[in-house]
């Protein structure tokens, strides 16, 4: 025990003494019993390995013996309690979704696509109502109104029409933005807003990177949140999650320097 000598705050060696007390516990066993423990097995157990065989010997469920003259009353009380509990669970909820905790089958969960099968976020999601289109008044809303008017609005003006000034790329704050890669090509901004990130609070901006010529998605999207904590929560929940047969990769978008 002396190979490492600890130093104190002044850098000096300190001697540490350790006392060990040895306690000998003696167990007396009947001689005959000890002898019998060494007997070789015979009959159907001949040549069997030592120790109990799980086929013939099992440990049962715990049973309780509560001694007392009032045991009948105690037992009755307990039975009633368990009966009540059983009744409660029967009337309240027979089916419970593993994803969101709702009263439906897990396979039929409306949040199946977004939440996959994680009970941890399931609880949070069911608690806060999905902010359907409240944050989607940006590009989608504008284009919808423009479509209703039957007039073509050029893409770069659409946002302006909704009253949001497009920021210059350089001075945009990217601290609340998530970079979502490995997206399926078929995924649109709307799907991201209404399905994928529906449960994580309103989104400030959703942008899918597309090929300039063909308009095909490059499988990459930037999602901006209003708060960093919401972004963090969404990243933790969705990173590594499957969505439209691809496994999402979600991380904080790194601002270009």
């Amino acid at each position, binding site marked *: 025990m002396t190979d490492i000598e600890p130093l104190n705050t002044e850098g000096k060696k300190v001697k540490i003494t350790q006392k060990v007390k040895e306690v000998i516990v003696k167990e007396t066993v*009947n001689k005959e019993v000890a002898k019998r423990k060494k*007997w*070789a097995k015979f*009959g159907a157990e001949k040549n069997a390995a030592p120790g109990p065989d799980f*086929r*013939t010997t*099992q*440990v049962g*469920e715990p049973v309780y013996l509560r001694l007392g003259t009032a*045991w009948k009353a105690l037992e009755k009380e307990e039975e009633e309690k368990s009966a009540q509990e059983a009744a409660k669970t029967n009337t309240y909820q027979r089916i419970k979704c593993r994803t969101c905790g709702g009263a439906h089958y897990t396979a039929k969960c409306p949040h199946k696509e977004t939440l996959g099968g994680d009970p941890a976020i399931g609880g949070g999601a069911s608690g806060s109502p999905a902010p359907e289109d409240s944050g989607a008044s940006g590009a989608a809303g504008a284009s919808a109104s423009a479509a209703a008017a039957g007039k073509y609005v050029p893409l770069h003006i659409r946002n302006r029409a909704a009253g949001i000034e497009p920021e210059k790329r350089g001075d945009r704050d990217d601290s609340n933005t998530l970079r979502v890669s490995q997206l399926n090509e078929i995924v649109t901004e709307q799907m991201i807003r209404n399905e994928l990130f529906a449960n994580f609070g309103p989104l400030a901006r959703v942008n899918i990177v597309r090929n300039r010529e063909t308009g095909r998605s490059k499988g990459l999207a930037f999602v901006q949140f209003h708060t960093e904590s919401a972004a963090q929560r969404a990243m933790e929940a969705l990173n590594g999650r499957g969505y439209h047969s691809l496994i999402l990769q979600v991380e904080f978008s790194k601002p270009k320097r």
Partner: protein
Amino acid sequence: MRPLLLKGHERSLTQVKYNREGDLIFTVAKDKEASVWYSFNGERLGTFSGHGGTIWSIDVDQKSELLLTGSADFSVKLWNVSNGENVFTWSCVSPVRRVEFNPSNDKFLAVMDAVMGHKGDISVFNINKETPTKQDEEPILVIPTYEGLERVSVAGFSYLGKYIIAGHQDGTVSKYDAKTGEFINSVKVHEGLVTDLQFSEDRTYFITSSKDKSSKILDVDNLNILKKFESDSPLNSAAITPLKNFVVLGGGQEARDVTTTAANQGKFEARFYHKIFEDEIGRVKGHFGPLNYIAIHPKGTGYASGGEDGYVRVHNFDKSYFDFKYDVEITAEAAAASKENNQD
């Protein structure tokens, strides 16, 4: 407490017994093999095979060297406990319902069933302990069923092997001199078949169980009923616990009636009664068939029960079992202690 479940028999258990030290458990069932188990971990040490029918009864001697089994194949077999070897076989006139050594282990009794014209009897045989393979074929004593009584169902030796106490089908308990076989007296104790008869540690009193749903403690000398335990289902077995003043009763609805009633009505529980106050003080659940036999660890630290369901359940009592006392007991003890202090 977590019981050990021993599943070595394919059919319902008929008898379960501890040896003197309580380290071995012997079990017999309606299949043709007897088993021996270590009680501390439930490991099976071996089986005794050779019988051709249900084994109704088993008994082991004080030294755990010789083992007796009585079977429905009209025979009693003597076994070597340590290696499972069958050392001798007595062929009998009818099925053997119960075998038991006398306290000094030089004799044993076998209860013969009343079948095929045979009236039933208690036969007492000598045991040659020196050379177990050479035994006297003939019983030294045959006590036929006493006139006016129905067949004997259970029997055992009293203290010092002085008397033989027998329980009858009609609920009578009778007493005989173990040397001469002379009938001494009989008492009508139960309304139905006496299913079990187990002695106290010193063999001066015994407990009976009956199909009439009651159990009684009688003393050997006068056959007076000392205590009475009422239950709500037919009883198959009763045992007296050493260490604590309890008795354990086992039984339950008849196996043939199980399908005609609700499952929770089965009452397949071991019931604990206080030996002195005669109150029921607790139950242990577990079996899903009637309990056929209850054996208490000779040191009073646990018990084993064999059921119609084919399981043997071995229980070791929790601390609360040993601590349990009636309020009157506690106050009496406190009073005695304070008295002692005053004297000092």
